[in-house]
């Protein structure tokens, strides 16, 4: 751990100490006050990256028992949720796709189909990355497609508009796709679990899809227009991607398992969200696509451990009444206009997600947003979903998402290039989610 990070860690603990000695605000218990302290402590750790996110998540989990706010059984019990097992199963399924090479075949089909002109090719990259993000986490999608897109752009000069547009489309496509299904990012199942645990709102895989997929479908053409208008791509000849032969048995098996998994997710609501993906993962194991070693390697424990911290924050703020207190205080300042509140929440969430991981931003914002919704009588589901979807953006800054950094590191674009498209994309994204929450979801009967 370097000196800077040690200082950040010390500052984080100083925040907790300050909260400990702060006078008790009216209407808030000691536990509530300290839970707010842990919220700020967590936010500081997530932004400063003083500790890896998973470690920060663990730390957030152990502080409430140390301060005597919750028993260890209660805190670690927050972790025991189907969303955790959904995440584990989804990572295994994703590993199966990668191991079989199915993603490469999908990439070669889509890129070939969209290879008519440079502008259409950019759309192809967006569609490809978004499609894979429906079943694989967005960051993994960027890493997997980076060599494929990189090779297809080999003839393109660094600094050319085609290079900029191609690489930006890769990360934007993955980001836009990641909100569409529960598998795209850990924040999605976290939101489902948060709503179920704290408000008794149970969302199925299909419910999420119905509410969130339109955001992806609306955002993709918008992102395409932004990219090709800001970085007008020159015509180019794509380097031909190595042609794959016939579909291999292992690929058929993965396709079959995915179809079965989605069928269960779509049709058997009573099984929740985790059972189907675990069955799928077991089948991949039984058919020899994945070995136990592969499964061990495919587990990003940081994300799973972060989940524990997120649940502790969410549940802790709710149980101690801190989220209600905070929400009432904020409403007291900004008023009770639901549209204004929603817009402010979306803007803050997007700003936060530009500065920290999507999952961390949603973990911090969800308890506040849901609390505010219940204080002013808005639909908790609508507000929570809106915040969860906005928490999946992060188009403008390199640190907005690991995909942005990975594509930037290839040298095809500069920071200012992604800023140009990203600020616009973030603003339009906020507008799209706002439209969904205020117009489309109410029309769909979501309350």
């Amino acid at each position: 751990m370097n000196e800077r990070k040690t200082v950040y860690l010390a500052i984080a603990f100083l925040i907790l100490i300050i909260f400990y000695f702060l006078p008790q605000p009216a209407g808030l218990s000691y536990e509530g006050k300290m839970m707010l302290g842990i919220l700020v402590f967590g936010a500081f750790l997530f932004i400063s990256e003083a500790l890896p996110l998973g470690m920060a998540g663990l730390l957030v989990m152990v502080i409430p028992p140390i301060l005597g706010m919750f028993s260890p059984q209660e805190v670690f019990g927050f972790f025991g949720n189907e969303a955790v097992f959904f995440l584990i199963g989804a990572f295994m399924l994703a590993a199966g796709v990668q191991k079989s090479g199915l993603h490469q075949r999908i990439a070669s089909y889509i890129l070939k189909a969209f290879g008519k002109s440079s502008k259409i090719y950019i759309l192809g990259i967006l569609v490809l990355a978004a499609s894979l993000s429906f079943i694989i986490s967005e960051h993994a999608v960027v890493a997997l497609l980076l060599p494929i897109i990189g090779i297809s752009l080999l003839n393109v000069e660094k600094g050319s508009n085609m290079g900029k547009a191609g690489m930006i489309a890769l990360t934007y496509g993955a980001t836009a796709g990641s909100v569409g299904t529960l598998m795209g990012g850990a924040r999605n199942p976290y939101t489902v679990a948060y709503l179920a645990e704290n408000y008794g709102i149970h969302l199925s895989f299909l419910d999420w899809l119905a509410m969130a997929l339109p955001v992806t479908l609306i955002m993709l053409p918008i992102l395409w227009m932004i990219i090709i208008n800001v970085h007008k791509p020159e015509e180019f000849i794509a380097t031909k991607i190595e042609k794959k032969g016939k579909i291999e048995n292992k690929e058929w098996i993965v396709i079959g398992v995915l179809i079965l998994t989605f069928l269960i997710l779509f049709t058997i609501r009573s099984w929740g969200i985790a059972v189907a993906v675990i069955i799928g993962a077991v089948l991949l194991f039984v058919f020899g696509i994945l070995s136990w070693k592969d499964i061990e390697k495919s587990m990003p424990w940081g994300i799973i451990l972060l989940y524990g911290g997120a649940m502790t924050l969410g549940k802790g703020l709710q149980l101690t009444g801190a989220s209600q207190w905070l929400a009432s205080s904020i409403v007291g300042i900004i008023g009770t206009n639901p549209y204004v509140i929603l817009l402010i929440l979306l803007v803050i969430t997007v700003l936060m997600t530009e500065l920290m991981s999507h999952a961390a931003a949603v973990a911090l914002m969800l308890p506040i947003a849901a609390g505010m919704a219940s204080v002013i009588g808005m639909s908790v589901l609508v507000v929570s979903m809106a915040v969860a979807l906005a928490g999946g953006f992060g188009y403008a800054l390199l640190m907005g998402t690991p995909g942005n950094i990975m594509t930037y590191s290839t040298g095809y674009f500069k920071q200012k290039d992604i800023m140009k498209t990203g600020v616009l994309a973030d603003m339009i994204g906020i507008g799209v989610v706002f439209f969904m929450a205020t117009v489309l979801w109410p029309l769909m009967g979501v309350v």
Partner: protein
Amino acid sequence: MRCLIPVHQELYPKNSLKRTEKLCDEIVLLYIVDKKLMDKVQSEASYILPSFALQNVEEFILNMHRQEAEKVKNSIRNVPVELRFVKGEYYESIEREILRNSPDILMTDSHLRGLINLDAPIWIDRGGEIRECTMIVTSLRKIGKIKRAIEFAKNVCDRLSASFYIYYPNTQEKNILEPLGKIVDSARGEAVVFLKEQMQRVPEDKTLLLI
């Protein structure tokens, strides 16, 4: 003249590269892949990605940069180029290369504060043809150093077929400078030359030579 040209993905010295044929006898092309950025990629990737996805990300990115470095090298014609490909911090890498190679001049397009501390003359190229250049002398202290700097600047300007002038705003002891070059009343031309410690604010559009 042995030129050191650092190339970085955020700082691509397009103008300097164009100038090499006139200015340089040999070139050390220092292609720097930002270590902090690569570490960030690696840490983000290793945290979030399963190992299947992780394994080749860094290698692939480095390979892309190697190919780019070769492209930059091949774009320079008629001057021998030694390519150095390093993963490191921008200034540190340049500093190390200056120690290792003792270049006569460092060529770049970007005016960065940190460059001043480097132990080599620095050419900050704004592009375009250079017909005249002016050395601005603000004080005659360290006259020996000034004389050597003027010799060096004259050599650079000669190579660019540009006329060389000296601008010394003080009235005292002008005669000391007169044998070294033509004294003018104001800075002329597309390039200005400063001793690093005497550097003043310069117009954005002028090429700079800092000695």
